[in-house]
Every structure is written in C-alpha cells, then in structure tokens.
C-alpha cells in the first residue's frame, strides 16, 4: 500500500534525511514537504489529504504545537495521524503534544543509522494500520 506523507520541517537536511530513508528502502510512499506550519496548512487546503503527517516542533513562524492545535480544531483534518519529530525529550513538550492529540512522538537521534531505524519502524507500523479516509 502506498501512503502519502506530509513532512513539516524547516531544516533542509532533515527533509533530505527523511527522503533518503524512503528512497534507500525503496518504499513506494510519496512525500510532500512543507517548511513550516503555515505552508503546511496551505498545502492541506489545496491538495489531497495525506495519510500521515510528520511534524517538527521547533520551527519559525507557526511552530509544531501551534500547527497541531490548528489541525485538531479543523473538523476535516483532525483525524490525520500526526507523528512528532522532536529534538526535545522534555516531559512537558511530550505531555503537551499528546494532550493536543499527537499520534506518536519520536526524538531525533544523533546518529543517522538510529534515525533511519526509527523512521523505518514507524513507516512499517503505519503501513499496516487502517487509516480513516474522510
């Protein structure tokens, strides 16, 4: 099954990393990238809804949690699962993210190998999930 991802991260290399994991593992999934929350909302308004959103927390303009709040208050978009990709393992951030309605929370590891492992697990997990199509 091919999934559509929306990756929201202001860091170009982070976006490259994610794309490389898909490419290197020959995943059939497609990816749309947004540099921040605002851009992501525009994309969501225009294009077909993604199956899964990967969201960085620390971004300029609209940050991750603000975007998440916005998304969860939108009746059309609220069921799209959002996985947080964060640099912070701070308990408060974690709690806040889940409170608003994150579906998962990944702390980005230092090593690229570790990162690849985590993303692979995630994608494989979500590939076998039934997803709600609104």
């Amino acid at each position, binding site marked *: 099954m091919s999934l559509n991802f929306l990756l929201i991260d202001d860091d170009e*290399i982070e976006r490259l990393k994610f794309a*490389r994991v898909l490419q290197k593992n020959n995943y059939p999934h497609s990816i749309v990238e947004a540099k921040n929350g605002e851009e992501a909302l525009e994309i969501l308004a225009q294009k077909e809804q993604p199956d899964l959103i990967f969201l960085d927390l*620390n971004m300029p303009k609209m940050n991750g949690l603000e975007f998440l709040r916005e998304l969860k208050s939108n009746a059309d978009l609220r069921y799209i699962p959002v996985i947080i990709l964060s*640099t*912070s393992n701070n308990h408060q951030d974690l709690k806040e993210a889940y409170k608003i309605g994150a579906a998962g929370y990944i702390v*980005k590891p*230092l*090593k*690229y190998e570790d*990162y690849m492992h985590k993303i692979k697990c995630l994608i494989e997990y979500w590939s076998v999930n039934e997803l709600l199509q609104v």
Partner: protein
Amino acid sequence: MSSDDILILKRALVREKTARKQAEKILEDKSRELFLLTHELKGANEKLQDLIGKKELELQGVFDNLVDAYVLIDVYGNILEMNNAAKILFGYDITEEKINVMSLVYKEDYQYAMTSFQQLVSEGSFTDYQARVYTKNNGVRTVHINASLIKDKKNNSIRAQGIIRDITEELEQKQIFEEQKKQLSAIVENSSLGIALTQQDKILQCNKAFQDLLGYTQEELLSKEIKDVSLAIHNGSPAEFLQKMEKGEIDTFSMNQKYIRQDQSAFWAKTNVAAVRNPNGSIKYQVTLVEDITEQLEFEKQREKFVKDLEKTNNELKDYAHIVSHDLKSPLRNINALVNWIKEDYGDVLNTKGLNHFSMIETTLEKMETLINDILSYSSAGDKDNLNTKKIDLNSLVNDIKNIVLIPKTTSVNVLKKLPVIKGDVTRIQQLFQNLIGNAVIYMDKENGKVEIDYQDKNTHHLFIIRDNGIGIKEEYHNKIFKMFQSVGDNENSTGVGLAIVKKVVELYDGEIWLESTLGIGSTFYFTLKK
C-alpha cells in the same frame, strides 16, 4: 506708898501686860506667815528642779534619737558630747577617747574648715558647710553641717554645737544620676533616630536627628504639632492608637508614617510612640522615635524587583539551556547524516585515512552530544519546580544502576547495609547514585576493584557512603571536582559535569557532600540527604 499710888501702879501694870500680849501676837502671826511663805518657795523650787531635769531628759532623748549626728564641742574644738548618730557616723566613743574636731577634717578641706570655724566665731553660726571628714571605720565621708555658738550670761562663747548629716551616698547617687542623665542625653542627641517628647501631639523637646530629618530648628518645631509635619497614615490611625494609649490600653505603638520636611519634600518613617505616665496613670508625655525608612522601603522594593528579575532570569536560563541544547544538537545530527551519506555514497573512492577521519568526525559529534546532554541535565538537576517526588527503594535503584553501569569482572560493587526507602525525584536520585558509582567503577586501577555502598541514619538526614579502592583524588582537587567542566582525571569520555550534577542534587535535598581520599589507595564519598 499711898493707896492711890498703888492703884496707879496696878493700872499701869495691866496696861503694860496687855501691850506685850498684843506685840507677842503680832510677832507670832508674822512668824507663821514667814514659815508658810518659805514652805511655798521650797515647793516651787523643787517643781522647777523637776522640770529642768525632765527637760534635760527630753532633750537628751531628742539628741540621742536624732537621725542626724549632733556634736557639742568646747571653744578649743574638743568634743564634749555626741549623740548615737554621731557615734555611728564617726565611729568614735568620747567616753573612751578624747577627740578634737580638727583631727576629723579631711586634709584638703582644712582651709575651708578653718574659714567656716572663724565664721562661726564671728557670726555665731554657719550653715550648709559641706566637706569631707575622716571616720574611724568608714573611711572618708562627705558631710553637711549646720553649727551655732552657745554663750554664757556674760556673752562669752563657751560651747559650739553642730548638726551633721552624712551626704556621701546622696552625692554618689546624685552623681550617678547626673552621669546617667548625661549619657542619656548624649545618646538622645547623637542618635540617628529622630527623638521627640510630645504632649498631646505638641512637641516639647526634640533631638538633632529629629530636627535634621524635618529640616526645622528646635525653636520652629516647639511651636508645631506632629500633625503639622506629618501626612497620610500608612497602617493604623495614630489617633486611634493615641486614644487607646490615653485609656491605658496600650503603652506603645508603632506605625509607618509619612512626614513633610520644611522644603515640602516627604519621607516615610517608622514611628514608635511610648507613653510616660504620671503615678496616677495619666499620660505625662510621649516619647516619639522616628526612623527614616525611605531608603529601607526603596531597598525593599528594589529587592523585590531583584528577586522577580532573578526568578525571570532563572526561568529564562532554564529555557535557554533547554532550547540551546536542542538547537545545538540539530547541526550535530545533520553533520552526522551528511558524513554518513558521504561514507555510503563515496566510500569506494575514499582511502582508509579518509574513512578514518570521517570516523573521528563521528566520535567528535558523539562527544559533543554527550556534553550537550550533560549541560541539559545539569541545568535541570537543581530545578525545584519540576520534581516528580515519589517513594524510592534505594536497594532496587542501586541494583538497576549496577546493571546500567558497565562493571568489569575485576570490580565488585557491594551494598554493605540495607538501604532505606526515601522520598525524592527518581531521575535526580538515580543521577546522583549513578554518577558516584559510575565514577568509582571508571576510575578503578586495581586488579581487585572494590566499590562499597554504606548507609547511616542521622536522624534528620540520611548519610550515604560510597567507598572505592581506585586511583584516589589529590586533596587540592577535592573542591574543584564538584565544579562544572572540571574533570581532573585522564578519562577521555569525562565531560566534568557528573559531580557538578551530584552536588546540585545533594543540595536540592538540603544535604552536603564531602570526600576523603588518598592518592593511589582510594576515595570515600560521603553525602547526606534530608529526610
């Protein structure tokens, strides 16, 4: 002789007889009168003698019981009589030894004594003589004397008498009182507190500080009332307090009051008012103490602001450390990814040396990440707001740590005594034990490494002891090791943050940490945690 003659003679004889009888009767009467008169006189005389005796006794009684000393002297100064008080004062008994008053006069007062004595002779008396005298047993005393001459009928001086009062103690008391008065006025005058005596709000007297505080002279202030120089009331109404004071319900009160200087500028002063009462309880006057607290209030305000600022800065710093740590990690991750990709994509065109350098970059990145993590945990270690306090069984905590810390087979880690269950934040307590146990294991140079964990109950605190037979720490480093980034060992992986975190956690739980160590033999770390 004729019969006529005889008749004549007879008649003459009768006449003569009668005349004699009459004379005898007169004589008898006169004699009786004289006897009666003599008798009366004798009686009167006896009565008079009695009276004199009585008066003399009375006088003696008076003299003897006189509180003041009484001395009677002759014109040469020899003491003839002393009453009881005089005997006690001078300590002499004139029935036993003869004394001349001049021998009693204090050496330095001799001239004055002579002058006074001459005044006594020439004017018949002197009063308010005040000088020092020698006494037999009581040293030199200061006395007050009033004296007068006694003269005989011919106006010759025969005696002199004096009433003597010992005023030594009175003078001493007076002197003490004067001294105290002086001291008090010196204190009042030089006090930095403004002090005023007031009566019904009216200023009766005030010290220099009070004048300086308000910028008026004493004279100006004496025509003023407290309400003329004060403004609004900070806490409590003085009128209310004064009423209570008037009623006798309170003797003192204290309040902050705003005063107005002569130049119309205002200042806050702490004002203490104390009542000085008459014997019947009514208020004689009030002592008002005024202390300028403008600066103090300013200071307090400033301090409050400082505390607030500090709190804010602290919070910012916490956030800052947090954010910076994560922001610093992002580039590290990126570098790591890029290095990885170069190795993956161009591995075959790189030689061993090049690949080796890339490995070194990766190691450096890891070290950098450890450092950032340490800073992060150090900055959150002492954070009191973020504690997750629970009961912790230290026995299982230490067991967990033994599994986490890589312990070589040559080293044993033993708990000597059953450890207590304490209350605390698991993360912090684990950091504490893990760092200390970890250090003991890492800095172990002996074949047969021993790490022992001991415990003592110290009433208010738990005392933990972690002892090792490792490399030991030079005494000059004993303080340094607890400071941030001060790694004194030669372990490459040490960032020098571990013991700084340990100290922070110990302090978080109101404890202390110290160590005993001998280089080459081992170290013992002691730390306490408040129960």
